[in-house]
């Protein structure tokens, strides 16, 4: 049982580390790689939880995560990077040190919120929940801090990984919820991919500053 905790926490920590590193990375290729590592760790964590909780559904979750987020989405993201010739693209909206300090603060807030309010729960879920909330907050921070549409998508996907991490840590979470979340992510990715193409057609860049200018003036 001790090994269950340790391994689950280790993998949760890895996922959190990936989310934190997403903040500091400026190059899209590196962000995609980090996302892939995060998704792979998540699938491993799901399988491990399935083994610990004796749940078949969690194995299914792990396999879906592996196939969809560990393989399919990174390939598609890399395709986009290649097609739009963004391999060397570098962007900076917020100073890196500031964003990392904000990220640390967010992790602190998540721990501050989750640990006291779930005092009665099992300790396995407690730390997992804290980590999951941190991952969600960090993903949201990436979405607000970055200007490039692709980086925002990666932030969104990372947020979703945090949600799944929270779900697999909860004993008795129905499989349908996780499955539909995964499906939703796929659909969202398709829609956003089409939007990226349209943005590219109009502005020759994926930077959404142009859209913001139009919004300011046009309305």
């Amino acid at each position, binding site marked *: 049982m001790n090994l269950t905790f340790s391994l689950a926490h280790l993998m949760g920590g890895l996922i959190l580390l990936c989310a934190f590193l997403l903040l500091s990375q400026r190059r899209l290729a590196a962000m995609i790689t980090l996302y892939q590592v995060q998704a792979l760790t998540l699938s491993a964590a799901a399988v491990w939880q399935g083994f610990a909780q004796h749940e078949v559904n969690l194995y299914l979750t792990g396999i879906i995560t592996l196939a969809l987020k560990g393989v399919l989405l990174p390939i598609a993201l890399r395709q986009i990077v290649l097609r739009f010739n963004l391999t060397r693209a570098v962007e900076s909206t917020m100073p890196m040190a500031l964003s990392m300090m904000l990220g640390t603060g967010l992790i602190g807030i998540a721990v501050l919120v989750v640990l006291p309010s779930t005092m009665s729960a099992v300790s396995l879920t407690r730390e997992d929940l804290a980590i999951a909330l941190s991952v969600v*907050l960090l993903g*949201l921070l990436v979405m*607000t801090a970055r200007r490039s549409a692709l980086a925002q998508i990666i932030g969104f996907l990372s947020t979703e990984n945090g949600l799944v991490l929270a779900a697999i840590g909860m004993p008795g979470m129905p499989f349908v919820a996780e499955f539909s979340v995964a499906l939703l992510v796929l659909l969202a990715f398709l829609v956003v991919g089409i939007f990226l193409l349209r943005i590219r057609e109009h502005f020759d860049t994926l930077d959404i500053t142009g859209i913001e200018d139009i*919004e*300011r003036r046009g*309305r």
Partner: protein
Amino acid sequence: MTDNVTLMVGLPGQGMHLHLDALSLLFLCILAPQVLASAVAGMRFSVTFWVFVFGMVLALAAGDAFTLIFGFELMSAASWLLVLRGDQRPATLYITIAIFSSACLIPAVFLPASSIAFVLIALGTGAKAGLAPLHSWLPKAHPAPPAGVSALMSGGMVKIALYVLIRYAFIVLTGAAQPWWGVVLIVAGIASVVIGALRAMLETEMKTMLACSTVEHVGLIAVGLGIALRAKAMGDPALTAVALQAALLCAVAHGLFKPLLFLGAGEVKHATGTTSLNWLGGLMRGQPRLGALMLLGAAGMAALPLGPGFAPEFLLLHAVIAAAATGGILARIGFTFALAALGLGAALALGAAVRLIGIGFLGRPRSLHAASAEDARRGPLFGMGLLAVLMLPVALVPGQVLAAMMPVVTLLAPQAEIHLLSYTPLPLILLAFLIATATGFILHRWGVRGTREAAPWNGGFGRAPVWLPFGDPTTQPSATGFAEPVTRAIARGILGKHGTDPAETYLVAPLQRLHLRGVRLAERIRRATIRQRLGVVFAALVMFLLALGLAEGG
């Protein structure tokens, strides 16, 4: 008179209750002649007018809070439609104030008897009655509709608001009464008296001027009510009775002469096409009957002795003097100041009335329209005549009128000691006549010693130009010129440099700025980019989590 009538409409399971007591009857009596006069003056074909009247009667006859509010709101809505006939901007201003008033009144009538309920009632009814500092809408909204409606709004609707104030302050909330409730009313009333009288002196539009004078009279009534409320809470039965008599008699008198003046102003507008005093003059020649009736009304407005406005003001000054002998040093100083302010208000009201008659009806016509004015139509004249006849008892035998109103005073303050007014003007008239005759005789017999020649005073006219051999009417003093000494002496100090109402400067303008700022903020939020919105939501989430964590952890 104590039985309830239950109507089968209204709130489910409860219905609406009608109940008449002495107070409602008094205000119904105030209302009835105005409605009759306005109807005769030409409003009787308007459905909205009758809905308006029905709302007022329902509010007066209400036996429960729901019926009262229902009638009050019916009155507001119908009068809004009527104001809308005049102009759109005053109507919007008016409906804003009406909504504010109901927003205060509706919670107040369902609150238990407490100071909060009184403050809300005072705000709601004060806004509707035009009590300072919520009066600045009244001189704009009351003159806008046709004259019959203006008359009923100024003479009747304002009284309904005061009726609600009296009913709640003296009957419903009486258990929780505090002396400072009265002080609030006194302060607001004094401010209304000074500002209303001053603006009445300065305005050149006849109907606006009359509306300002309404603000002044509402202030007088509020001062009387405030003194009575304070004296009742402090247990001073004699003072309570005097102040209540003053306030109620003032309401009666104002309900007679103000509709008369408004109907007259409407007839002036009908005959000449304008109510601006600067374009009138000499109407007494073309409209002798209207002029005579307006003279009676103006005498009432100015509170001249032997006019209807004199007895209430006389009683009110008595009440203030008596109140100055009660309470601590601050109260004494305050009431002395109030006395001075009331004196100023009375003097300014006299000036306003003199200006109304002197500029508008005497002198020579300042425009061809004024020169060719024909006498008023029969309907309005009949209505005004009715009001003028009813003014006579209030003017000449106010003691008897007060005796008839005694049940109201006992209802409002059961412990009040009523000393009836022993003011009988008829011997006074005789005395004044005797004195005048004797003075005239003495002056004629011994006053003139020899004769002296002087150049004729040409009635204030400049030298006649050749093309107008009988003098140029525009060289007469105008309404603005007549008010100029007052403007220089007092108005600049109280109203500021441009003569704007202090309520507008210190209440309406800051509210407008606040509104503008809110609109700008809303526009910025509406124009925010996706990332800014996301950032705001994210920041809100983080703040919430932080608060949650600190609350839990701390």
